[in-house]
């Protein structure tokens, strides 16, 4: 394998002098081989990360990532990019904190600037019950060795001058919590960076290749049927987010996952005036401003199974109203575009990173709203699971069996209602 062309300010300078004629492709566009040691289905962040860590951590480089469209075009390319590890349940805390640590070194690790920006993730609350919940959660993080801070209204006024702290609004903000190490990242770059780094280690990234069937022989996965012909596989990892249940079904496995829509929207870009990420408990909206200047707003699910990637305008009105209420200045902007992603909603709101009841088949999925931040650790854990044919302790709790035994990881206490999480 040829060494990867390094990116740096010097390479840019050299590029400028040569009219940028010498840049190599960030990843190749190979024809699929007849078979691979491991095939990853899904070229989102998770699939690409899995391939990268398989090659880097486990020395398994005879790997293909099959993507039915273009890499990063799924939820990786349509999310609100919030990265944090401020979870309630210890199992989730450990996992997401591992992920956050990987984020912190990711740009250098991949030699690709994913613009991870630890600008702080703030949750504001409005009632005593919410306060108790958020403080408990953040105190719990401290015991898990994760950074967490309490914010008074004065702190909020200082950190987020655009935030509406008036006591006269419908659900006034009484305080907040912050994870300072949390932040955002440039979503597309995450897919591209992993792809480039995985490719450099020998992984074949194959786009426009839809998996249409999974052949199982004697209880073991042997081959994938794809739109570009059959591809043999020693092991298979599924990382297809909203499509998890479809792919698992191809191998005869049912999953406690439903597919639901989540909308996000951006304003026209303006100069920076929101420097952190703020989540608003009362109205379920989260707001940040990208490095290009758009105000980026997300909300809650449309609330019914859907694969359409088109959100309901009712939900849109809702999230824009809450963004405008809590960031009144946003009302002066105009909405530029909105879109939706198909979410893999698990029945307890926590992920599944596990071997499936077919030999050689494992998956990562069930990410609900929160899988972007999980990208590094999800890939790391699935790679481990595939390489060792057994889960790492970090992902052992995220099994499929927990839904059979009742040992669910119900982060929100919403019960087995996929759209309730």
């Amino acid at each position, binding site marked *: 394998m040829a060494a990867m062309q390094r*990116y*740096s300010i010097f390479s*840019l300078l050299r*590029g400028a002098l040569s009219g940028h004629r010498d*840049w190599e492709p960030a990843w190749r*566009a190979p024809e699929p081989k007849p078979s691979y040691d491991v095939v990853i289905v899904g070229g989102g962040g998770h699939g690409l990360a899995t391939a990268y860590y398989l090659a880097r951590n486990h020395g398994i480089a005879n790997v293909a990532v099959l993507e039915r469209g*273009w890499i*990063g*075009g799924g939820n990786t390319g349509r999310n609100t990019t919030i990265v944090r590890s401020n979870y309630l349940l210890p199992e989730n805390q450990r996992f997401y904190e591992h992920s956050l640590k990987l984020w912190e070194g990711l740009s*250098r690790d991949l030699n*690709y*600037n994913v613009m991870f*920006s*630890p600008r702080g993730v703030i949750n504001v609350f409005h*009632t005593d019950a919410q*306060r*108790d919940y958020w*403080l*408990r*959660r*953040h*105190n719990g993080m401290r015991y898990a*060795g994760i950074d*967490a801070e309490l914010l008074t209204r004065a702190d909020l006024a200082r950190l987020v001058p655009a935030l509406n702290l008036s006591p006269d609004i*419908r*659900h006034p903000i009484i305080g907040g919590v912050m994870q300072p190490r949390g932040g955002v990242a440039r979503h*597309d770059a995450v897919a591209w960076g992993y792809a480039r780094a995985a490719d450099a280690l020998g992984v074949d990234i194959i786009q426009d290749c839809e998996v249409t069937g999974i052949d199982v022989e004697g209880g073991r996965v042997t081959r994938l049927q794809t739109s570009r012909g059959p591809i043999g596989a020693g092991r298979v990892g599924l990382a297809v987010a909203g499509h998890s249940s479809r792919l698992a079904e191809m191998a005869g496995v049912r999953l406690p996952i439903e597919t639901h829509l989540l909308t996000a929207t951006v304003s*026209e*870009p*303006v*100069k*920076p*005036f929101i420097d952190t990420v703020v989540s608003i408990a009362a109205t379920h909206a989260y707001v940040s401003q990208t*490095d*290009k*200047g758009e105000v980026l707003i997300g909300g809650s699910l449309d609330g019914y199974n859907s694969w359409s990637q088109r959100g*309901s*305008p009712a939900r849109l009105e809702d999230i*824009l*109203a809450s*963004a*405008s209420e809590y960031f*009144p*200045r946003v*009302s*002066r*902007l*105009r*909405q*530029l*575009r*909105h879109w939706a992603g198909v979410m893999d909603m698990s029945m307890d709101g926590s992920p599944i990173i596990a071997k499936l009841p077919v030999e050689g088949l494992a998956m990562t999925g069930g990410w609900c709203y929160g899988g972007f931040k999980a990208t590094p650790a999800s890939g790391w854990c699935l790679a481990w699971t595939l390489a060792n044919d057994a889960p790492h302790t970090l992902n052992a709790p995220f099994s499929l069996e*927990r839904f059979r*035994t*009742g040992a*669910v990881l*119900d982060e929100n*206490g919403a*019960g*087995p209602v996929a759209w309730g999480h």
Partner: protein
Amino acid sequence: MRRQPFRAAEGGHLIDRTEPLRFDFDGHRHEGYRGDSLASGLLAAGVRIVARSFKYHRPRGVWGFGPEEPNAMVTTGVREEARPNLKATEVPLSEGLEAFGQNAWPSVSWDLGGAAGLAGGLMPAGFYYKTFMAPARWWPALYEPLIRRMAGFGPAPSAPDDAFYAKRRIHADVLVAGGGPAGVAAALAAARAGARVVLADENVRFGGDLLRAPGEIDEGDGLDWIDTAVAELEAMSHVRLLRRATVAGYYDHNLLTVAERPGGEAPAGAPAARLWFVRARDVVIAAGAHERPLLFDGNDRPGVMSASAAGGYAHAYGVLAGRNAVVAGNNDSIYRVARLLRSAGVGIAAVADTRSGGDIRDLPCRAGGTVERVLGSRRVRGVLLRRADGRAGDKGERIACDLVAVSGGWSPAVHLHAQARGSLGYNEERGLILPDRPGGANRSAGAAAGRFDLDGCLAEGWTAGVAAAASSGHERPAGEPPRSPDRSAWEAPVFWQTGGGKRFVDLQYDVTAADVDLAAREGYRSVEHVKRYTALGMGTDQGKTSGMAGLVLLSEALGRPVARTGTTTFRPPYTPVPMAAMASGLIGEGRDALRRTAADDWHEARGALFTAAGLWRRPRYYPREGMDEEEAISAEVRETRAGVGIVDVGTLGKVDIQGRDAAAFLDLLYANRMSSLKTGRGRYGLMLREDGRVFDDGVVMRLGENHFYLTTTTAHQHEAMQHIELLLQTVWPELEVYATDVTEHWFAAALAGPGSRALLGRAAPELDLSDDAFPMMAVRAATVAGLSALVFRMSFSGELSYEIAVPADQGLALWTRLLTEGREDGLTPYGTEAMGTMRIEKGHVTHAEADGRTTPDDLGLGRMVRAEGPGIGKRSLELPALRRKGRQQLVGLSVIDGEARIPPGCQVVESDDMKPAPPLGHVTSFCYSPTLGRALALALVENGRARTGQTVYIASPMIDLSMAAEIVSPVFYDAQGTRLHG
């Protein structure tokens, strides 16, 4: 100098020359006319540099005529009033308007940021992914702030938009999007057929392309025909005409949003904008087409303009976009434009047609010629023309001019069709992306469907209108479609570009042809990758002019047909919509009503501090002179426990259950048995979710053999009803049970404390309140304080207590009469804090404990679950993890230091060193108990019941506070329940 040096002496059907208006641009005063857009006003005034570009700060002028404008972005207003990112082509001129060019400091004509252009070589597409990585700590400290400084187009808003915005939700048989010839013909046909029609166009005036250039319809002037048709439509009561109204989004089941900015002649006090939600049976998409650019070196210079726009400024506004023009293009429209410009007084220096041939003796033609390069650095000073076939030895021809009007052909506005998930097809021969199979009940017509001749547009519009009306059952209208002699179709099958130099594709994001090429070479081969890698098409114009260019360049770079490249996804809105319009009506109480109990006015008058309980507000406590919050709450508790208190419990959910199978149903609904209740008696009940977790609790009262009354928690009023109906309608439809939500009908107040019996005795003299006649958990109908009431004997506080329910309209009367009656008893109104304190002292659970993860056994309520018989959620209790040892269990925590107070959100841990370690559990509820003189908490603790007697720590590391506490029974007070009897 004349005030409007570039205004022609006559012409301009959109302006009113009798009404001059003054406006400021970048601090300079100019004059225009009513009816002008800011763009036409600026052009008339001779302002050519209107903005600076995003990345390289290159000077930019007006390119287009309407929403497709990529360049001329301005901010209107100053400071709080500033509105960024408006397209000058869409801003109507008004008296005193203040506008500023964007992306420049101090101004667009002298922009220091222009230096960025010098470093341009370092900033190819995606350059930031390749650098700024080391050292890591410089990213947040240096690199990112630098990038953020460059971010955005306009200034950040510094104040909210306080204007009034309106919304309207309507239904229509036919919505026609776009009011050009096709749209007006469609609306006319559908309306004459009797259909309810909405016709929306984004311009001030209907006419579409006819606004920009004259045409002939039915043997007269085209615009006159439009006006007559519009007048006919206006007179029909089943037609609604929306001007300055953009069809923004096309959603499921034919719901479309239309953003109307009345402005113009709208009456004073009219909303700043109105957002329509139109549910249409059928939609005619007659949105026209966008003119394409040509790519050549310097095609972004101020003075290079869409040809139809240049013609349009002359025709619609009487404005000359230059004095001396070169018109260049690859289709016949350039001749129409050249003549239009010439008749308005613009000199035509050359007309360069990339094709050979043409009949144009009256014009200085350069058949087979095209623009190679623009001369002039801040604005167009001339062009270098060359032969389009690139014949060797051609040195080219320099032509001086100040306007280059270009037409690269037309791209149908397929946006709405695509938003509706219609498929698109690429017509190789015509070089057009066209609507294919529609994705909803809609049809495209006219230029939006690739029909470019006026006669064809009219015919197609008419046919579409007839068909759209037919889908709501309306018959073909009488009359014939309008006709035009104009059958010219300006086909331009080739996407035109010349090689070399700085050729801009996306003017807004400064994406050049070289950037697209670089992306393709670097492996970003999907059109979606190119968009995201270069930002092509991601600006406020959403690629209306750049999209097609991007596709062609990418396809060429990869050597594959355009059809295989495909387009990026079209998403709403078609043009940006004010956030305030989307949000209007849904802020504050408009979104979440504030629910008030019947006694709310009293609480407010009494100065209660309120707390939120779902949408309700409830008194938290009643402040007292000279006491702080804790003291006031403690006083409420003490006075209740020692005497008598009253609390408003009107917010609890209440359900009336009747029917032959009512009792049997309640046995299924609750984990404990209800069918054994005797009439006139009640029981505390536990509802589970199917997964075995506690869902809700409340009291069930049996009012008659087949009649029950039950309460739910405040939070679950609606969920509980929905749950009940689900079970009745889908799981056990054979049961005859009627459930009615009566929450709103009843107000309720609880009297609590040893003095409650005496007080109630006086208020309800006929009622025998002895323990025998009216035992615990009994219900009686009675007259209380002169009002017919239901009285329940039950207790949340642990004291002798009665809940009295009356119809809500008499709730305030009950409340005030009891308070009057209770004056001699020292009756104390108490709020949710005192109520919470007393319930914690008694170890009663609420949602803080039943948090959706806990089972009855976790909460110490395992015995309530009856052993036998089916019931919702019971089966799940048998799952291994719910029976597992070591689950968290509800315990009491008694703080050892009597002076200590528990802060919110504490964890329960084994050591007080605050070092990372897995907590044993967490505090669910806490209070200072005036009764016991110490702080108490309820907590869920691993294996908690077995730890009774152990000392643990209640800790909040975020505020560095911890305190020792003993694990005790959650019932801190009166474990025997003797106080229930007074």
